[in-house]
């Protein structure tokens, strides 16, 4: 059991998480706490599986998931930006809604309350070191670059980040704070859509009830751990994914009860946070912005 042999599993397990984490990073830079990734991935996965089930095309499924992600982000943005809702609680509410909705819809959509029928998976590629991976791997590489570029090399990114750091100053310069936050959330929605589609169509080829199983929260942790930076987040999600793969292999080699091994990714995150814990979040992280005149 070498690190190299665990690489394929690591990448597979990491991929959906990374899309989610990238989305959270974009939101975080604009000052939005996007803890609703769990619901976003779940709903996007459902949409992807359902459309693929109806049409037989996995690519259409991924497109549907992206559309879902956009709608999801728009709705969350309405509650957070327009209605001045608390980011964390609204996110939790959305997670509940998606968990409930996708489970209730299982029966009408797929005729089965636990699993959807097997649907067409996304195209797979055989890579030299990484083994069999979904085509989204390339999408992911592009996404990481795109997010980094958008945030740090464009005017748009500059404004988004300024909104996250000091919205009052940005506002006085004529930057529409809530509009940029909305746009950041839209980007996050697209990424959530791809992540959900990868989970359902890229890996398994079906949708299962509650199939995200805490992945949304893990991606949030990866973002915090990475100091809210897009490039660092690739490393932290790989780190988490690696430990997930590691614990599976470890089960076969050592006699430690599996429950203890299952805690590895989480325990390691905590330990790492102890050492790298004080990364600063954008100043307005989690706060709603209200113009003084209102």
């Amino acid at each position: 059991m070498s690190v190299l042999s665990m690489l394929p599993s690591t990448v597979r397990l990491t991929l959906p998480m990374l899309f989610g984490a990238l989305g959270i990073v974009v939101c975080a830079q604009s000052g939005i706490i996007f803890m609703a990734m769990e619901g976003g991935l779940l709903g996007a996965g459902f949409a992807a599986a359902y459309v693929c089930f109806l049409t037989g095309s996995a690519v259409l499924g991924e497109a549907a998931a992206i559309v879902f992600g956009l709608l999801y982000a728009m709705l969350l943005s309405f509650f957070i930006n327009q209605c001045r809702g608390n980011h964390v609680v609204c996110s939790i509410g959305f997670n509940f809604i998606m968990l409930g909705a996708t489970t209730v819809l299982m029966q009408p959509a797929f005729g089965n309350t636990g699993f959807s029928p097997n649907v067409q998976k996304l195209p797979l590629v055989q890579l030299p070191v990484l083994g069999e991976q979904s085509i989204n791997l390339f999408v992911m590489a592009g996404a990481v670059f795109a997010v980094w570029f958008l945030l740090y090399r464009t005017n748009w990114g500059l404004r988004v980040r300024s909104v996250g750091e000091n919205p009052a100053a940005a506002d006085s310069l004529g930057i529409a704070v809530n509009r940029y936050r909305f746009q950041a959330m839209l980007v996050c929605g697209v990424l959530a859509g791809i992540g959900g589609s990868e989970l359902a169509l890229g890996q398994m080829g079906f949708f299962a009830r509650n199939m995200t199983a805490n992945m949304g929260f893990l991606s949030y942790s990866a973002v915090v751990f990475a100091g809210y930076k897009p490039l660092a987040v690739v490393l932290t999600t790989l780190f988490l994914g690696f430990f997930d793969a590691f614990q599976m292999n470890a089960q076969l080699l050592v006699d430690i009860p599996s429950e203890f091994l299952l805690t590895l990714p989480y325990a390691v995150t905590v330990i790492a946070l102890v050492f790298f814990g004080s990364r600063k979040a954008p100043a307005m992280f989690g706060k709603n912005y209200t113009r003084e005149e209102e």
Partner: protein
Amino acid sequence: MKSKLSRMQSGTLRELGRVAFAMLFAFAAGAVFLMAIGSNPLTIYGAIFAKAFGSFDSTLRRATPLMLSGLAIAIPLQTGMFNMGGEGQIIAGALTAAVVGASDLGLPAGLHAAAAIAAAMAVGAVLSGLPGLLKITRGANEVVTTLMLNSIVSYIVTWLVLNPFKGTDYSPQSKKILPAAEIPTFGKLDFSWGLLIALALCVLTHLFFRSTAKGLEMRAAGAGPAAARYLGINNKLLCLLAMALGGAVASMGGALEVLGGQHAYFDEFFTNYGFDGIAIAYMAGSHPLGIIVTALIISMIRVGALAISRTTGMSPYFVTMLQGLIIILLVTPRFAGTVLSLVRRRFPARKKEEGGAA
């Protein structure tokens, strides 16, 4: 000139309007969803409320740990700390109480239960105190550490209940507690004296934060960076104390349910109680007395959910969805106003009075 009373009345009416609008909207949105999938909203809502009120004792029983779960968020929140570890703290407290309750300590009734609760609270204080400590010494984000601890604790508790503390051979549960450790129920009713303990704790918390020196210090510590700097090291210790209290309270919730209801620890019983607690705390604006009300609301719909699959064939997860809707709508203060202003913008021809919903 408006008197204080009439100002309060118009404030209350406005709140009432806002809240009623939000609740109705939530139920209406749920009804639309139901109709879209071909179900009858009236039957389903009727079943939920019939069960929630028909078995109000079960509702009260469930509200007991939920109230404490809400306090577990609200207490640390006063100092600006976020305790998202309720899930783990509750189950750790529940298992601790079950194990202490099942051990032959030779204590009489009452004392045995108290010992079990105390043990549970100690465990909970450690579970939330540790992330608190890491935050104040190393700056480790306590949201993440508490969330991670949820999973860690969950796995460890599962192992414990399947191995050293195994109760039966066929299901993941601990041994039954000794009768001396039980918290008595009210006759045939489903809830126990634990409910009163939880209610008392909410009242005590309210008084603590409003009237005691320590409580006011804590609120100051959470008030803002200037206050924090002024108070220095004391501020950090207060935060730690608040976190520890939060965890202790959550674990007590688990303990009360085990000692007063289940009489053993059943794995997976407390799923989502922690997250419900977050919603409960925020919906009540972190007000300890308000938490009593919001815990009851969540408990009502959760208990109602159990009946709908039997009587209507609808999945109980519909209630999860409804709960999400209610949570969102009740913590967005400007929801009613925003919707109405959007409506107004769409239909400008409609004449609306000045000074309508803000």
